[in-house]
C-alpha cells in the first residue's frame, strides 16, 4: 500500500512532451531512494492543461507540477517524496500567485469547470479496471442489469435531457427509443470515436483517460435496445487510445463485465474495435457504418435511419464517445441530477478543446450555458501578448465563428445555432486581431475539399468552386460578383448535398460573411487584407524615420530583398520579398511594417 501517489499524465499531449521518459526516471529515482514500497507511480489520462505538459500531481497533498523536465526528477524525489518539501519552482504558476499555495481546484483554470465526462481523466490509471471500479465504475451497469428494465433505462435518459455530443445534438434517449422499438434478430451499438474536427481532442482524451466509462455505457445501451454486439470505430491515428481500449476490453471480459451472462442476468454483450484510416467523412453515421461493414467509407441517403436499418441492415444506434461517457453517471446519480446542470434545452456539461490564441490551451468541461467570455477570459486566461479577441470558431469545418459582440451569449446547442455557428464536437479555436477571417474560411474549405468523399456532385464540385473563389479573394483578383456567386453556392450546397459534410461545409464562409463582410469587401475592393495575413495583398516597408541602418534585417533576409548599407536607411525590394516576416522579428527599432 502506497502512502503517496505520483500521477503522471500519459495522454497524447504529455506523451509528446516526454512524459514517458519522466515516468521511467521517476521510477528509477524512487527505487534508488528506497521508496518503492511507499510511493506509487500512476500513469493517468489527460489533466486538461496540455500546454503546460508534462504534468505531474503528487497525492495526498495534491501538488501540481507543470513542465517537468527529466533533470528535475531527483529533486522532486529527494525533497518532496522523501522529506515532504514541495519543489516550489516547478509548481503551476497559478497556484503560487499569493503567499499561500492554493489548491488546484481553486485556480482559474479549474474553478469554473465541472467534470462529468472527464471525471476520471487524470485521476485513475486507465489500464487498471479495479481503479475504475474503485471510483464507482460498473455500478451503473450492475444497477441496470439487476434492477431496471430496458424501458426504465430509456426513460432515465429521456428525463435527463442528454443530447448527442458529437455535433447535431439529437436527444440520446429518443434515439435509443426508436432502435428499441424496431424488432430484429440482431441489433448493434456503435461508438463514434472518429474524431476529425481540426483542433478537437476530447474524445481521444476520454478514451485515453477513462476507457471503461465508454465500455460500460455501451453495454447499458445494448441492454436498453436489445443488442448483444458493439463496435467502437476509432481512428488508427490515436494509437494510445486504441491500446488502452484493447486493454480495457480484455480486462472487462476477464472480470465478466463483457461477454456472456453479465451480472448473472442472462444479458450478453461484447465489443470489438474497428480502426478507421482517418477520413473525416467517416465521422458521418452512415459512412461510418459502411466503413465498419468493410466497404469504402461513403454516406448513403437517409431515411432509412440507422435506428431502423443501420449496420449490416440491422437496427443500430450510434453515439459519440463523450455522450457515452456521461451515461453511467446519469444512471448512478439520477436524471434529475444531470438535468439540474445546464440550460433549458441543453442539459449537463460540455467538454471543449480550447486552442488557438489563448493562454491556457487544453481541455475544459463546463456546464452548458457558460458564456464564451468566462471560457476565454477566466478559464482560458485571456489572449496572450495583450492582443484583442476577434472571434472564436466552434464546430470545426462544419461550424462558424462567434464574434466579440456575442461573447456573453450562454453557450448551448440552440444559442449557437441562432448566432450562425454550431456546437459540433466541441473544438473551440480562439482568434485574435491578427487573424484574417477570409483566410480562416479558406483554411476550412481546403479541409473540406480534401475530405469530401466525392460521392455527390454538390459537395465534390461545389466545395472546390467555393475554394477557388476564396483563393481569388485572398489574391485580390475577385470582383463583387464573385462574392455573390460564393454566397449562392453556399445555399446550393446546404440544400443539395447528400450528407452533413457537404451540407455544413459552407458554414465557415456564411458565418464569416455574416459578421466580417467588411473584410471580404476590403480584400475585393481595396485589395487590402486588414489583418495583414494574405501575402498577395501585403507590402513590407521600412519606416525611414525609425531605421537606424544596423543591417540586421538585410543579413536576416533569406531572399536578399533588403538593400542598404551601414547607417543608411534600408529599403525592401518588393519584387524579391517573400513576405516571410523574418525581418520584422529581427528589427530592434520596430521600423519594418506591413501594409
Amino acid at each position, binding site marked *: 500500500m502506497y*502512502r*503517496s501517489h505520483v500521477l503522471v499524465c500519459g495522454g497524447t499531449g504529455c506523451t509528446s512532451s516526454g512524459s514517458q521518459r519522466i515516468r521511467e526516471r521517476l521510477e528509477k529515482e524512487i527505487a534508488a531512494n528506497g521508496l518503492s514500497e511507499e510511493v506509487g507511480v500512476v500513469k493517468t489520462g489527460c489533466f486538461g492543461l496540455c500546454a503546460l505538459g508534462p504534468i505531474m500531481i503528487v497525492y495526498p497533498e495534491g501538488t501540481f507540477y507543470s513542465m517537468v523536465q527529466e533533470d528535475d526528477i531527483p529533486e522532486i524525489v529527494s525533497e518532496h517524496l522523501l522529506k515532504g518539501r514541495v519543489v516550489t519552482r516547478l509548481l503551476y504558476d497559478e497556484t503560487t500567485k499569493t503567499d499561500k499555495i492554493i489548491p488546484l481546484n481553486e485556480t482559474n483554470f479549474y474553478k469554473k469547470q465541472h467534470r462529468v465526462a472527464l471525471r476520471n481523466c487524470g485521476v485513475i490509471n486507465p489500464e487498471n479496471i479495479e481503479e475504475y471500479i474503485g471510483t464507482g465504475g460498473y455500478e451503473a451497469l450492475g444497477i441496470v442489469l439487476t434492477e431496471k428494465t430496458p424501458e426504465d433505462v430509456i426513460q432515465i435518459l429521456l428525463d435527463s435531457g442528454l443530447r448527442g455530443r458529437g455535433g447535431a445534438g439529437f436527444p440520446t434517449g429518443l434515439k435509443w427509443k426508436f432502435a428499441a422499438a424496431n424488432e430484429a434478430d440482431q441489433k448493434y451499438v456503435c461508438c463514434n470515436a472518429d474524431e476529425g474536427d481540426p483542433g478537437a481532442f476530447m474524445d481521444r482524451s476520454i478514451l485515453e483517460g477513462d476507457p471503461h466509462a465508454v465500455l460500460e455505457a455501451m453495454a447499458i445501451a445494448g441492454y436498453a435496445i436489445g443488442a448483444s454486439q458493439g463496435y467502437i470505430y476509432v481512428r488508427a491515428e490515436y494509437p494510445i487510445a486504441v491500446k488502452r481500449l484493447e486493454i480495457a476490453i480484455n480486462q472487462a471480459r476477464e472480470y465478466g463485465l463483457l461477454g456472456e451472462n453479465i451480472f448473472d442476468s442472462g444479458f450478453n454483450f461484447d465489443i470489438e474495435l474497428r480502426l478507421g484510416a482517418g477520413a473525416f467523412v467517416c465521422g458521418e453515421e452512415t459512412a461510418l457504418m459502411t466503413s465498419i461493414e468493410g466497404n469504402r467509407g461513403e454516406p448513403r441517403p437517409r431515411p432509412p435511419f440507422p435506428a431502423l436499418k443501420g449496420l449490416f441492415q440491422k437496427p443500430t444506434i450510434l453515439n459519440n464517445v463523450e455522450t457515452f461517457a456521461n451515461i453511467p453517471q446519469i444512471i448512478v446519480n439520477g436524471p434529475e441530477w444531470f438535468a439540474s446542470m445546464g440550460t433549458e434545452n441543453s442539459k449537463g456539461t460540455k467538454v471543449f478543446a480550447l486552442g488557438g490564441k489563448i493562454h491556457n490551451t487544453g481541455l475544459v468541461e463546463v456546464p452548458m450555458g457558460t458564456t464564451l467570455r468566462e471560457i476565454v477570459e477566466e478559464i482560458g486566461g485571456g489572449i496572450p501578448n495583450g492582443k484583442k479577441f476577434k472571434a472564436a470558431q466552434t464546430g470545426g469545418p462544419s461550424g462558424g465563428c462567434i464574434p466579440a459582440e456575442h461573447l456573453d451569449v450562454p453557450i448551448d446547442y440552440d444559442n449557437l445555432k441562432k448566432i450562425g455557428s454550431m456546437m459540433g464536437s466541441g473544438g473551440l479555436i480562439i482568434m485574435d486581431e491578427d487573424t484574417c477571417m477570409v483566410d480562416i474560411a479558406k483554411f476550412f474549405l481546403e479541409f473540406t475539399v480534401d475530405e469530401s468523399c466525392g460521392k455527390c456532385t454538390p459537395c465534390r464540385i461545389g466545395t472546390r468552386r467555393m475554394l477557388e473563389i476564396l483563393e481569388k479573394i485572398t489574391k485580390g483578383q475577385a470582383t463583387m460578383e464573385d462574392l455573390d456567386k460564393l454566397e449562392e453556392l453556399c445555399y446550393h450546397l446546404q440544400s443539395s448535398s447528400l450528407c452533413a459534410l457537404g451540407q455544413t461545409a459552407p458554414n465557415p464562409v456564411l458565418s464569416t460573411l455574416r459578421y466580417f463582410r467588411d473584410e471580404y469587401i476590403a480584400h475585393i475592393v481595396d485589395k487590402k487584407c486588414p489583418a495583414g495575413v494574405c501575402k498577395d495583398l501585403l507590402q513590407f516597408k521600412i519606416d525611414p524615420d525609425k531605421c537606424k541602418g544596423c543591417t540586421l534585417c538585410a543579413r536576416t533576409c533569406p531572399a536578399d530583398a533588403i538593400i542598404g548599407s551601414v547607417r543608411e536607411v534600408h529599403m525592401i525590394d518588393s519584387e524579391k520579398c517573400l513576405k516571410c516576416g523574418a525581418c520584422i522579428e529581427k528589427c530592434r527599432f520596430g521600423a519594418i511594417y506591413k501594409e
Partner: protein
Amino acid sequence: MKSLEELRAIRAKMQGKVGVRAENENQIRVVVGMATCGIASGARPVLTALSDAVQEQNLSEKICVTQTGCIGLCQYEPIVEVLEPGKEKVTYVKMTPEKALEVLRLHLLGGQVVTKYTLGAAQNSL
C-alpha cells in the same frame, strides 16, 4: 461478475487507495515531520503505518496523511501534527507506529486528544 455485491467488494477494496487522490477542504490533515532529524529518529515507519491504516480502513477521503519538513523541535521527533479544520492544531511527539495507531483510533476516529503523547505533556514532564 455475477452480482453487485461482488462488484462492490472490489470497489470497497480500491476505494481507500483511489481516495488518496481526493481533494477535500474538510479533510483532517495528519502531517509527519520527515526532515533528516525525523527520518533519523524513525519517522518513516510512523508515516507508512498511518498511511496504510487510513487506506485499509477506507478513511482516505476524510483523512489526508502527508509529510512535511523540519518542524524545529528535533529532539521531540518523530513528530505528528493533526490539523482539523476549525480546531486547534495538536502536536504529538516521540511517536512510534504503535502510538500513531493509538492516535488514529482515539483522536482521529474517537475525537479524543491523546494528551499523554502531546508536546505539552512531554514538556511538563521535564
